[in-house]
């Protein structure tokens, strides 16, 4: 069983959902990212998503765009990012790490070599925003060969027919982009989730994570009441900018408490 599947299986036993906070690599520097990864795992993150900085993040709002720019200014590269993962893994073998980003840096690194190096460093899954199922054969074989979960995005615009196609080849969990829009802007309501999640649930046994616009412990709790995991990104980056890494970890703890307060049927 993959590390991601293991975490979701254990949470199902416990009867609760997962919190997936986000760290943009090297924002504002490598040390802060390492501190956040370690701290988040301690404060209740069940899985951590790491953003791979890219110059042209076309699905991201201003907050993650700016975080990516700071990461690049601090010298972020995929090689450096995998080194960071490797260092984290020396102390933590249990928290799954998922990389999220865009295709071009991976192509430039070499898809095969990237999957090999990522798996070796201790990465568990990949979310590649601009790789729809139609183009997935570019990455899927190498990712699968190295035991990396390929986590697909599902959007409100994804039809039921298309859902099957998107889910074929997905593993780990599915990422429901709960709004039509970019990261860190609008928030889906409880009514939206009550309408959308069962539609996906009917099509897959994979855990469903919800992202885009999840900001508060209350919203995270609403998300896990319907789905299996809440992904929180932009608000944590805002806190990092306005305050510091300690404040981010304080917020992660509060989010984790919000998620844990929701009891789900096992």
């Amino acid at each position, binding site marked *: 069983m993959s590390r991601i599947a293991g975490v979701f299986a254990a949470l199902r036993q416990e009867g609760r959902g997962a919190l997936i906070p986000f760290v943009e690599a090297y924002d504002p520097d490598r040390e802060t990212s390492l501190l956040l990864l370690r701290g988040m795992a301690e404060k209740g993150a069940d899985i951590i998503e790491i953003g791979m900085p890219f110059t042209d993040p076309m699905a991201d709002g201003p907050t993650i765009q700016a975080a990516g720019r700071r990461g690049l200014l601090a010298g972020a590269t995929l090689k450096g990012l995998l080194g960071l993962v490797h260092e984290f893994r020396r102390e933590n073998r249990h928290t799954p790490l998922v990389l999220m980003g865009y295709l071009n840096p991976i192509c430039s690194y070499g898809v095969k070599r990237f999957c090999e190096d990522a798996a070796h460093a201790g990465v568990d899954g990949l979310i590649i925003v601009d790789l729809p199922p*139609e183009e997935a054969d570019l990455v899927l074989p190498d990712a699968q060969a190295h035991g990396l979960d390929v986590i697909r995005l599902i959007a409100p*615009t994804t039809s039921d027919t*298309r859902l099957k196609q998107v889910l074929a080849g997905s593993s780990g969990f599915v990422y429901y982009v709960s709004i*039509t829009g970019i990261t860190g802007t609008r928030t889906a309501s409880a009514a939206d989730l009550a309408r959308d999640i069962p539609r996906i649930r009917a099509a897959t046994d994979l855990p469903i994570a919800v992202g885009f616009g999840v900001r508060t412990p209350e919203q995270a709790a609403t998300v896990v009441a319907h789905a299996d995991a809440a992904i929180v990104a932009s608000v944590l980056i805002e806190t990092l900018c306005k305050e510091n890494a300690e404040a981010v970890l304080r917020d992660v703890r509060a989010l984790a408490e919000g998620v844990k307060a929701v009891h789900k049927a096992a």
Partner: protein
Amino acid sequence: MNDLTPNSLRAWPDARGRFGDYGGRFVAETLMPLILELEAAYRTAKADPAFQVELDYYLKHYVGRPSALWHAKRLSDDLGGAKIYFKREDLNHTGAHKINNCIGQILLAKRMGKTRIIAETGAGQHGVATATVCALFNLPCTIYMGAVDVERQKPNVFRMKLLGAEVVPVSSGAATLKDAMNDALRDWVANVHDTFYIIGTAAGPHPYPELVRDFQCIIGNEAREQLMEAEGRLPDVAIAAVGGGSNAIGLFHPFLDEPTVRLIGVEAAGKGMETHEHAASLNKGRPGVLHGNRTYLLQDEDGQILEAHSISAGLDYPGIGPEHSWLHDIKRVDYVGVTDDEALAAFQLCSRLEGIIPALESAHAIAHVVKLAPTLGQDKIILLNLSGRGDKDIFSVAKHLGTEI
């Protein structure tokens, strides 16, 4: 295109939207269903004679087509070599080739029941053309434009506003065309239900490179017919500037299967190919994925996209349409570079000799003709796409020449 032979170079893209290894549909899932819907709508429209009739009506009576084919005699004599013809896309309504595509796309948007239009623009020519058709068809319109371009293309910004468009200056990145396209894509993701994105060049996710090319092929088709009438034969060379590459692919495509016609695309070499300040993605870039398609890109060793540079805002883009990438690889088209200074000189030369102020984009193509024509005999014919007029550029040209207007 059912009459094409199996080996035709005009038969691409394939079902996956690929030209060889280039093109494709690299977009977020939110957009994927729309891209597929657009493709289906385009197939239906293309097969519907009523669509062609409607398109022809607007192209004839609104755009003013066919555009003239002009024998540039004084320029030809001055250079002392090949006979040079200009395809006068600068004479179209709104002053450039961009309107050909905008008419086609807005008719598609109407068929699809979309009620809001967005577009990106670099030099502002595509923005003006989009704002124009939106005024004509009474649709609200938002144009994304890099803040740097807003500054260097003020007349076009004012034009767009006069036409009723909202112009959104984009300050991310280098605040030029690439960044405008990022923000247009972000707008589209957030407004998928009612919005149609009129992409201005033959790039982006499939089917855009194909449909923009098809709408621009009228340039090459007309020129071919006009030249047959004037000279009774095909040109020896057809030449056009390439940024994203829509005017060039429109000129080249009808000649792709004519082996005697040499095709030359002119990239912006900015301050020189040997510097880092240029927009020569084919000559100096390598394949990658950006803005929905796989194509040649200016990028660093880590796959981060580099900023392009050109005196011409319309060529200031680190990528290129995927069909050009393929034509470059198979060597059907030669892609050469022309610097800012060479383009500026050609801009002035054409103005003085022909009484035609060309767009800075087109001036890049003219600059290469200045080098090429004297090397060819007087029996040779060069067909140049004069893709737009240069009124929009007079302020920035004056600045470069140290003149105050």
